[in-house]
């Protein structure tokens, strides 16, 4: 075990940040997908969906408020996909084999990816939130609630990024790595991200209510807009911890495996 885990992880994070700076287009692409969905749902579908959801005013403005938490999760999922791709790409290059022949902290390559993706995702989310505010998103969160929102999003990102590092490692090719995290991008749809779960048929509704993204979305919605959170907060944190730990252990095992 190397005693330089922190220093090596910091070095690897600098490497990831430099990659990001060199190719900012990837960060914008990762932010672009959720922005497109945000605009589609707000302006193409928002009128009808807003009317369906009802509420004091109904309509598009109401729906944009409802929509944003789900789009933020989609941002995280989209970034996770980017992580899986960049991990898989890294593994196909000789540089990782070089790292393996050096007396450095074993997991630092992976930690670098995770921390780099965390930064990247936070940037994407800032972009998505800025667009949301521009088109009429009006949260009523207090500063403390905003901090909690950032905390929940960071925790979820941390969890999904570890999972996607493992997915990137398990993929034999970059193509597989870009396909494996696809379900994550769809999960906000199969939850309370875009429409309330009670509008869904029984089987789907059961899945939508119990899948991990729904409590996270409900928690964010509660913090941002003041809807009731209930037990969702604990459930959200619990899911994140479980996914992060599972992803971390899986990724570590995959990386240590000798061919």
């Amino acid at each position: 075990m190397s005693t330089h885990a922190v220093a090596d992880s910091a070095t690897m994070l600098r490497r990831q940040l430099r990659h990001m700076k060199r190719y900012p287009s990837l960060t914008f692409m990762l932010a672009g997908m959720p922005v497109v969905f945000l605009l589609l749902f707000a302006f193409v579908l928002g009128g009808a969906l807003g009317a369906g959801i009802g509420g004091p005013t109904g309509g598009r403005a109401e729906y944009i408020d409802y929509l944003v938490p789900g789009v933020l999760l989609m941002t995280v999922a989209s970034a996770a996909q980017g992580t899986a791709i960049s991990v898989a790409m890294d593994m196909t290059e000789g540089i990782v084999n070089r790292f393996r022949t050096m007396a450095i902290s074993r997991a630092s390559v992976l930690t670098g990816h995770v921390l780099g993706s965390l930064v990247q995702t936070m940037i994407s989310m800032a972009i998505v939130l800025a667009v949301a505010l521009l088109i009429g998103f009006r949260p009523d969160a207090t500063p403390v609630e905003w901090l909690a929102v950032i905390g929940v999003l960071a925790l979820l990102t941390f969890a999904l990024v570890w999972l996607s590092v493992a997915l990137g490692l398990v993929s034999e090719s970059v193509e597989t790595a870009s396909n494996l995290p696809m379900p994550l991008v769809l999960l906000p749809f199969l939850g309370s991200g875009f429409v309330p779960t009670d509008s869904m048929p029984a089987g789907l509704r059961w899945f939508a209510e119990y899948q991990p993204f729904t409590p996270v979305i409900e928690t964010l919605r509660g913090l941002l807009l003041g809807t009731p959170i209930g037990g969702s907060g604990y459930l959200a944190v619990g899911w994140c911890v479980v996914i992060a730990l599972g992803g971390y252990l899986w990724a570590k095992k995959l990386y240590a495996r000798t061919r």
Partner: protein
Amino acid sequence: MHTTPSAITTTGLRKSYGDKVVLDGIDLDVRQGTIFALLGPNGAGKTTTVQILSTLIKADGGKVSVGGHDPERAPDSVRAAIGVTGQFSAVDNLLTAEENLVLMADLHHLGKVEGRRRAAALLERFDLVESAKNLASTFSGGMRRRLDLAMGMVGAPRIVFLDEPTTGLDPRSRRDMWRMIRELVAGGVTIFLTTQYLDEADELADRIAVLDHGKLVAEGTAEELKRLVPGGHVSLRFADPAALDSAVRAFGDVPRDDDALVLRVPSDGGVASLRGLLARLDANAIEVSELTVHTPDLDDVFLALTGKPQHERQPAP
């Protein structure tokens, strides 16, 4: 030479993937401060050997010592002593040459000032100063290999592994690479080189081991190996059978081809032996219409050592 301690030793090194035996009991002894070449065709097990010695994969059996440590029991001690340059350049394409070297310096915990100093020195030494600020992805094959080698040197390793360092390079880049490898040894580093080219092993190595299908088939200096190879000869073509006959009288029992009017006179291809041969032709007033020098190559070594030329073998995947 037995006073020099060993840098790398292996005894009965074995490795299989499934039921495919890749290394079948390899014994090696590489002395400190020398260049050792592992010579063999694709699929002979060269890269597997390097991967085991550099802690990338585990051996199935046998004893291994690299820089006095067992790669399996004390991988980090081995890693601290070695530098590796792979067959596929292990550089970060999204970083510049300088950033790649500073990355290595950071991972060796050299500190900012010393790291930059060493990076600058290596850029200079490996002829990369002009491209220091360019992305590695824009580099030519030769530049990538040089950067790769430079990255392996950042930690000032005592033992350097070079896995096919010149495969795919143009002749000039190849010669540059050879020069730089020789300079490393002058600094006291031990080099473990794999190659499929006899001329490369000949040019660089103090000792050469020939690997074939996971087994060592020969070991020795370049001279010793070439003595095993009967492939070196001068081929003389004559205008008519009479000239061929008089040449046969002059050179005695050497292989002849009556249809092509060709005589194969054994020779090491050196100037001295050619001068002797020409003198003998002159002395006997023999007219030669064509003369070609054939120096031994890997094919000849394989023909001599295994009874089959390399290209008739099934390359292992």
